[in-house]
């Protein structure tokens, strides 16, 4: 009973926050609702017994992707009135696309035939004594290793593409730090360890002493000006 109640609570919050992602006026609030939606999806995974997927969803999407999302959205300079104008213009078009997608989903689900033993498999996706993580690892790294590697390669290509697009040569006059060279310098100074209370005398400083001023600076003659205020 408690599991069913939890499912409906999480599912309701998930749908509500997903709606708020689209409808809230402030884009930062949208991203925060998106994070709430991710969180509830992770909770649903937990209820379904997929604890590994739940944790990965939180780590990857909430902990990294959404942070960068929030990062970018916070720095956007947005004119809210212009945004709302766009909403009015695009709303019918969006509704049509959404409606078509929904219809297609209905058609697919309506024509779906389950294998006779699929229901039992769905109830116990993981065999007895094998943890979720282990089962998933076996599937990804043993049965579908090439597909998995190919997916990784595609991501790598995307990453290299992004780097190539943004990397450009720095102008020649920009000064960069060479940490190796900096550490390899020999110091002309040395550490002193004077006894407590003694302090460092002038003689113990190895740095060449500053030259003594040749003559005392002349006191500035008082010229009677600059006293402002009294006349």
């Amino acid at each position: 009973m408690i599991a069913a109640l939890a499912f409906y609570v999480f599912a309701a919050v998930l749908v509500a926050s997903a709606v708020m992602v689209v409808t809230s006026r402030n884009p930062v609030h949208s991203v925060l609702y998106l994070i709430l939606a991710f969180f509830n999806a992770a909770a649903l995974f937990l209820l379904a017994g997929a604890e590994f997927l739940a944790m990965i969803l939180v780590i990857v999407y909430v902990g990294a992707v959404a942070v960068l999302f929030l990062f970018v959205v916070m720095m956007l300079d947005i004119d809210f009135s212009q945004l709302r104008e766009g909403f009015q213009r695009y709303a019918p078009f969006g509704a049509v696309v959404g409606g078509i997608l929904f219809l297609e989903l209905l058609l697919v689900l309506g024509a779906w035939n389950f294998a006779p033993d699929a229901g039992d498999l769905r109830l116990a996706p993981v065999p007895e004594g094998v943890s979720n993580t282990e089962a998933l690892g076996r599937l990804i790294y043993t049965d579908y290793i090439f597909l998995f590697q190919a997916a990784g390669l595609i991501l790598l290509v995307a990453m290299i593409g992004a780097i190539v697009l943004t990397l450009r040569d720095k102008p020649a006059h920009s000064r960069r730090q060479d940490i190796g060279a900096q550490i390899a310098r020999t110091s002309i100074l040395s550490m002193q360890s004077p006894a407590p209370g003694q302090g460092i005398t002038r003689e113990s400083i190895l740095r060449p002493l500053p030259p003594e001023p040749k003559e005392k600076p002349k006191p500035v003659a008082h010229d009677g000006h600059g006293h402002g205020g009294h006349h």
Partner: protein
Amino acid sequence: MTDFLNTPVGVLALTVAQTLALLVPVLIAVAYLTWAERKVLAAMQMRKGPNVVGPFGLLQPFADALKMLMKETIIPSGASRLLFMAAPMLTFMLAMLAWAVIPVNDGWAIADINVGVLYLFAISSLGVYGIIIAGWASNSKYAFLGALRSAAQMVSYEVSIGFVIVTVLLCVGSLNLTEVVRAQENLWFFIPLFPMFVIFFISALAETNRAPFDLPEGESELVAGFFVEYSSMSFALFFLGEYANMILMSALTTILFLGGWYPPLHMEPFTWIPGPVWFALKIALVLFFFLWVRATFPRYRYDQLMRLGWKVFLPFSLLWLVLTAGFLKITGLLPA
């Protein structure tokens, strides 16, 4: 009695009792960590530190807490009120939430889940939200800059923390924290995995925004960083959250590398001391290193911080991960 504990109400009551039994000591530890930090820093700088309120200044944390409570909570006029108040609560809540899976002794965890390591990693990666939301909701330049720095910093160092954790998990063969500690019964992991231990400790400093990586709150350039606009209890919650996170990261270091509740040697005088005490002592040792580092090193420059994370720690931990995996495979030590 056992019948009552099996009913839903009984389970709830038991969980609440367990939670209190864990969180009250943690909060007291947080209070005394602030005292210990001031004492340790003072000793390292040849000062006395707090010594007026109570014997050895031991009541200082409570005096500070009382002072914080008496102050006025100020919400800046341009701030996003709800998020402004929610951010410190979130920070504090996340710092407390992670303790649910920490095994203090063999089998002494509130929730002994089989993805415990991932849970801790997920919670610690959420810590950045309190900071980002605080920075944005304050509607202040300094706070915002602090938040941006923090976001970039925490996301960068999580990557190397992730690789370190994976290396440890390779040697354990389980994601359960109790199993991680049990695998170290004879050999604590900081000996074979010493470089990873160092990387983990330094990344933990960056993850908790501690000196020398305290750029998000660098007072010389950002006043106080992301919590400039906070006062009173909301400020205190940030403060408590930061220190609770320090203790949490120390606990994680203890579990992953320092053998959790096990004594250093399984022989007479060491085995007299119970496991939880060893656990607390090890946490205290790691915390002392946190304070020592703060007293010793100046703050990192921002580009150097990023260079260290992405160009030094990431390649090195990746290399060490591959080496560990190869070594375990060749020698046949890979846990089933």
